[in-house]
């Protein structure tokens, strides 16, 4: 019976593999190739070596965007996971209407990033206009505005993962802890958290990479504004994150910049992949076997 199944396996895997190659592998390889080229149109690119990479690394807006993104990713990672875990913990204590709360908290996640960005820009500006200003005029507000937006969108999603984790904590362990006289705090630290480590791993991974890859919300909420033009004319888009920086490089400048943007994108991929893998490695080690 095994042999015929194996013979037909390509039929089942094939379409997915083909779609994956067309939609991911091939563009990825082409992207790497283009990062070594000067091009206006993809169809007539000329190889120029590592020029694009050196230009990208010398670009002050790219370094600014990197540090800004890193700060954003870390702050949003901490806030999102702490609040999501707290809400999940509360909603697994058997309080009334917890199913309704779960649904409500999860719902923002169903709205697209661009729409969310515009909705929140209206909310923030509605408030700030009372003070004669706007979120587009102050980079600190831009930063916290983005954090609030991301929290609002992501907490519900992470909460669902934590709830699943919390519900999987074995009852007998909790009971044993109770019999041994553990306080609520001790139970949380010594029993619950080690047991939901897999959920923490996945949630921190998701929120960290989401923070680094953030694009739509950034574009719709501030689009990098306020922009400071420094003496000499160099522009710093103070609330521009890495993905938006790549996009702006690609479309905002002349044809020699498209290759630079491509080089930035390749470095961006390596960075996100590396950070994600390192984080996975460290949190995995903290997981316990049930």
């Amino acid at each position: 019976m095994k042999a015929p199944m194996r013979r037909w396996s390509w039929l089942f895997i094939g379409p997915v593999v083909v779609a994956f190659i067309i939609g991911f592998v091939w563009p990825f390889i082409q992207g790497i190739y283009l990062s070594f080229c000067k091009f206006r149109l993809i169809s007539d690119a000329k190889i120029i070596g590592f020029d694009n990479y050196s230009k990208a690394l010398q670009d002050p807006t790219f370094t600014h965007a990197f540090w800004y993104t890193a700060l954003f990713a870390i702050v949003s990672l901490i806030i999102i996971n702490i609040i999501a875990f707290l809400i999940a913990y509360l909603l697994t204590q058997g309080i009334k209407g917890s199913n309704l709360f779960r649904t409500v908290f999860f719902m923002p996640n169903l709205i697209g990033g661009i729409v969310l960005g515009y909705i929140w820009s209206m909310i923030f500006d509605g408030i700030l206009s009372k003070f004669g200003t706007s979120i587009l005029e102050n980079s600190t507000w831009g930063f916290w505005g983005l954090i609030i937006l991301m929290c609002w969108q992501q907490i519900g999603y992470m909460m669902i993962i934590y709830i699943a984790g919390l519900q999987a904590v074995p009852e007998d362990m909790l009971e044993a802890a109770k019999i041994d006289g553990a306080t609520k705090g001790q139970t949380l630290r010594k029993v619950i958290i080690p047991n939901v480590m897999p959920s923490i791993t996945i949630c921190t991974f998701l929120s960290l990479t989401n923070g680094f890859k953030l694009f739509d919300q950034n574009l719709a909420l501030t689009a990098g504004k306020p922009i400071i033009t420094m003496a000499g004319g160099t522009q710093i888009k103070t609330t521009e994150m890495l993905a938006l920086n790549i996009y702006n490089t690609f479309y905002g400048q002349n044809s020699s910049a498209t290759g630079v943007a491509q080089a930035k994108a390749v470095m961006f991929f390596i960075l996100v992949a590396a950070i994600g893998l390192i984080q996975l490695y460290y949190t995995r080690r903290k997981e316990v076997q049930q």
Partner: protein
Amino acid sequence: MKKLFAILLSAVLCIGLFAACGTTDDTTAADDSNSAEATGSVYWLNFKPESDEVLQQVAAMYTEKTGVEVKVVTAASGTYSQTLTSEMDKSAPPTLFVIGNQAGVKDWADYALDLTGTAIEQELNTDAYNLYAEDGKLVSIGYCFECYGIIVNPDLLTKAGHSVEEIKNFETLKAVVEDIHARAAELGFDAFSACDMDDSSSWRFTGHLANLEYFYEERDDGGWTECPASLKGTYMENFKNLYDLCINNSTQDPTSLATGGHDSEAEFKEGKAAFFVNGSWEYSAVSETVPNATMIPYYCGVEGEEKAGLNCGTENCWAINAKASEEDQKATMDFMVWCVTDPEASRLLVDSFGVMPYKNAVESTNGFLAAADKYTADGCYVMDWATNYQPNVDTYRAGLVSALNAYNSDQSDANWESVRVAFVDGWAAQYAAANN
């Protein structure tokens, strides 16, 4: 039996999948065969959303008359360069597209057919709106020109006890504007309509109003033929004069301009504002309710500005795709010539676009362009669109908008200095970025 069932199921799955993938291929194949029969087709990538309706109409007219397929695709507002970049890479790229300024020439000259000596060039009555590459190749050719300045509602001025004729220079403009603004509550209307700084409106200031600085600087230099590497900022004070006048005497508080959301055009049309900073393309909309609306120049306190005219120029320049097939290029050329010679088509286009600088195109009925002509006839100088030289235009303007936002919320000298830096130093930096 089980095996048969599995095979059957997977076969159904695959058919579904390939059918879904295949649909688009089928239609393109059909399109290709159609166009092959009609020897060449036209694909016009248009950059002005407001013109889309008229262009679709003109395209349908041409297809009906000649059987040649004309496809008009319009890029969403502010995304022309992205759309062009992706469309040009496709197997059926645009045959007719727009290269509207020097930055565009830099990017796209290699993809444009040299129009020197072609049928369409021979139809032109002026070469003032042509764009050339550095090697002298005629890259694109103006299909219409427009003008911008300050749109005025003469009736409201009369109501306030003033007249258009009394505005001769910045001093007199300022007197009228400030008088109206001071009495806005009593009059029921204000001087300027909203000067929003969001993407749908900021170009009126960072693109148009800024032109007065570029133009006078260009005039001092004896005319620019290519983008200067840096600006001197000689006329920044004049730009500030007029800009301050606009934002401080308007229907909206200057601190509320950053996010925008005010309908400037509606304010003017409904008689809530007497002045509206915009261009000739607004004529058809504005004349519905203000039939005698006229346009005055950017008076900003420059010496001799009593002799200033409107800002005339264009970004509407046709280029033919050099990489399109010869049949398509020929079909496109025929279509262009038809657009500027056929009375019915040129009527539609002229009413939508403004003056078409071609020998056989019909006359314009646009009141603002008539005003521009009148200034020229009276011996006033035309302020050409030096703004078309803005390097890395989107990035440059974005920096300027941000600086102006900060200035709008707090009109301090320090904040104006940031505007000056974005305006002058920003130019040099973007020039360097675009040319290295």
